[in-house]
């Protein structure tokens, strides 16, 4: 795990706590983001992502912790500090777009500049520039209600970035769009963020969105941080069962750590319906020899072969194999457990065949339960 050094971070959230009644919607969260980075808060609905974002935006007061951006402290209840949202210099894109229906697109986008008392000719220039950036030049004089969902989303983004704020916040901005548009907008949003270079926090429950767009991802559950890291790290080195399960697809089995050399290599033992296997693997953080763990293997890292080559191999039966062109999606029954396996089409596996499963220790993980 690459924990960011907190000093030097541009946005810093320390020990954030927010209650709704007696429920802790956000439970002691800390993170930091370097300038210009794109951080994603990822987690299932209700895990506290929006609450975290609103806390940064100042749309509600927090119950504990400290939020700082650059050298400005946004809020810190213990020091009695609370900067109202309009003083925080942020741009925000909402799930419902929140485009004001009584103004044209250009008026919507000009609004933040008018608030900042920028002179009219500069407003016109900036608005034209930003509308061009998001591809809405032709729609400038339309009423917001006459735009499609995707266009409203672009307008909303234009309005958020036009004043070059310190921080950009996104709350599930793509979740109201249909799949195709969503995939297209991901790329576009990321391109625009890169271009303007504004530090961004992006909230989503969609893991593929997070993987595609983010520099860093924070996986959350129940108001807490489960893991933080880059997309590759989160995907290939999940630290616990929750993250393995939430991101992508994984074979997850209860295991016990047999041996751990302290540098991340080790051996775990998995028992399943009377059968036992020992698997050499990477030992994740926070577990050592003798601990309970979960074995986590991605389907593409399980190799199914017809000829076994040792007693560490797992012998199972292919229950079904679906040919999908560039790969074969297989299920292999081993005791009670059904392995998900992605096999190369050349193997021509068929249902009913006996196969041996082999694991590459480099891509086989033991993680916290």
């Amino acid at each position, binding site marked *: 795990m690459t924990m960011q050094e907190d000093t030097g971070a541009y946005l810093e959230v320390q020990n954030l706590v927010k209650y709704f009644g007696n429920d802790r919607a956000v439970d002691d969260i800390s993170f930091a983001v370097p300038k210009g980075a794109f951080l994603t808060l990822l987690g299932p609905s209700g895990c506290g992502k929006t609450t975290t974002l609103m806390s940064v935006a100042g*749309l509600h007061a927090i119950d504990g912790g400290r939020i700082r951006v650059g050298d400005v402290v946004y809020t810190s209840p213990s020091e009695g500090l609370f900067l109202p949202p*309009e003083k*925080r210099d942020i741009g925000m894109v909402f799930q419902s777009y*929140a485009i004001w229906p009584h103004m044209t697109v250009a008026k919507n986008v000009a609004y933040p500049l008018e*608030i900042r008392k920028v002179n009219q000719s500069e407003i016109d220039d900036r608005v034209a520039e930003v509308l061009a950036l998001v591809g809405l030049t032709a729609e400038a004089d339309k009423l917001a209600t006459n735009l499609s969902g995707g266009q409203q989303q672009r307008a909303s983004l234009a309005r958020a970035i036009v004043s070059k704020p310190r921080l950009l916040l996104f709350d599930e901005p793509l979740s109201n769009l249909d799949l195709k548009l969503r995939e297209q907008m991901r790329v576009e949003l990321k391109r625009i963020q890169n271009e303007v270079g504004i530090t961004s926090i992006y909230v989503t429950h969609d893991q593929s969105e997070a993987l595609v767009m983010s520099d860093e991802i924070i996986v959350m559950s129940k108001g807490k941080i489960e893991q933080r890291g880059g997309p590759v790290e989160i995907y290939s080195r999940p630290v616990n069962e929750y993250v393995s399960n939430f991101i992508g697809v994984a074979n997850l089995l209860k295991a016990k750590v047999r041996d751990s050399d302290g540098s991340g290599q080790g051996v775990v033992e998995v028992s399943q319906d009377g059968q036992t296997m020992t698997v050499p693997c990477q030992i994740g953080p926070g577990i050592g020899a003798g601990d309970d763990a979960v074995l986590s293997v991605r389907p593409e890292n399980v190799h199914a072969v017809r000829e076994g080559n040792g007693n560490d191999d797992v012998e199972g039966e292919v229950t079904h194999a679906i040919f999908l062109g560039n790969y074969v999606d297989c299920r292999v029954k081993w005791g009670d457990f059904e392995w998900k396996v992605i096999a190369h089409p050349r193997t021509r596996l068929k249902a009913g065949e006996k196969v041996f499963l082999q694991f590459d220790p480099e891509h086989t993980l033991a993680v916290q339960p």
Partner: protein
Amino acid sequence: MTTETYSSNAVERSRLNNRLRAMVTQENLITLVVALIVAGAVIVPLVVLFVSSFKVLDPAGWDTTWGFGNYVTMFTDRIIPKAFVNTLIISSGSTILATFLGVSLAWINARTNCPGRSYLEPYNLIPFFLSPFVGAIAWHNLGEPQTGLLNNLAREVFGIEGAIINVDNIWGVIWVTGIFFAPLVYLFVVGSLRRMDPSLEDSARTTGAGLFRTTMTVTLPLVMPGILSGAIIVFVTSAGEFGVPFKLSAPYGWETLTTQIFSKAVGDDANHHMGAAMSMALGIITVFLIWVQQRYIAPRSFTTVTGKGFRPNVLDLGPWRWVAFGYNIFFIMVAVVLPIVCLIIVSLHPVWTGKIVLADITTINYVKTLMWWHPEAISAATNGIGNSLILAFGGASISMVLALVISYMIHRTKGFGVRMLDFLSMVPIGFPGIVLAMGVLVTYIQTPIYATLWILMLAYITRFFPYGQRNISSIMLAISEELDQSSRMAGASWFTTLRRITIPLLKPGLFAGWILLFIIFLRELSISIILFTTGTETLSVGVYYLTNFENEPLTSALSMAQTVMLLIAIYAFRRLAGREALTA
């Protein structure tokens, strides 16, 4: 040969019979009958009013000639042009005041964390149900320079010389009309304020706009169609309001169109044709404004995508919330509490001199106005109570039946004449009660129903059934038509379906609509004042009689009786209809 012709004729005839029979269904028959009744009730008085306005009474008052004389008189008369101007001033002033009060109260209750806002809301709405005429009487007793309670308190407690306020003028009319019609604007905007997507405001806050700026540039513009609709309705209603200017400004030299129409309808100065012409003038203005509102403003409400999640969408006003609270309480004080307390105090005195004299406290005023068996009872008052109850029960019931049938026809049968019916049931909303009453007066004055309760009932229903109809229509639109259709599939006739399926589904709405009409009829003044005769006084006419020919304590006693009856009905309304019925 002959037999052949005969038989082919017979086939023809039976085919025709079948077609006739197919058309003569319960459904179509009732549609036709109702359409004719509504057309007759709504159109005939307006046409007769129009025709009558072109008859000019000769100076001796015996004969009439055709011509535009009445319309010319409106500009050349000594009083009428001023009455026009006064009406304009009063309507504009009341509209500004009511809009300010209504919008600010709705905003406080729906969008801020003002303490106790959900408890205050019902009290903010009370003036909507009470009689503005009674409000004017109460404020007269509060703010008359010599005998006004507030002025006397100021003199006694603070030793102030003279009077602190005087409501017996055009400003008093604006004040009372404004506070009584504020709930109208409130009801037009509170729903959309409540439903507004909070991220519309949040995004303004994050772009750097403060609370005030966000409210002025985002929140209020978003509810502007509602504000404009409310303002137009208040303008029109104020222009047609009779009681308040009659009590507060006409006696002191500020006549309005309605007080002038009244003086042309009854009394020494009566000239129905002149009254008809002035009614036409007033009606044309109000119909035009209502048409603008219905056609251009009501459809312009903004629809927005609403985000998920349940942030409580209220603004934290910080310490200012106590200011909002105080403001809200202030409104309830001036619009509800002070007037009622004042009426009670005055009604308990044998004569009112502006001072509370505990030794003189008496119930004689209630005896004289309520106890019809008592020798000293005043028949205008006691008759009024009985007649108003009859009119309110009967009128509300007939109106709701009519409204039900019309809504059903408009939204379910979609047969011939339905669009016409839809239009006809909109027309009365455009005309002030006093205008429609002038039409009914000139139409039926020669018939036997004149000088009976029936003419009042007819005018009440004609003017107000559209409210019931809109009430039912909105619910009917929300109930799936398939529920009816499945009943027909199951073999039930149209009437059975109506009785067994439709009406039970509509029941809550029917009750709410019924009580609303009951309330309106119980306090009705501007129609009654034109159409009543001795023996057919109504409650408000009784109040009018007492204030005109008797004294303030008697007037206050009957006003209190009316207010109590209305408060009971409001309570029933809230219990039955819930708060959504009005504010949704």
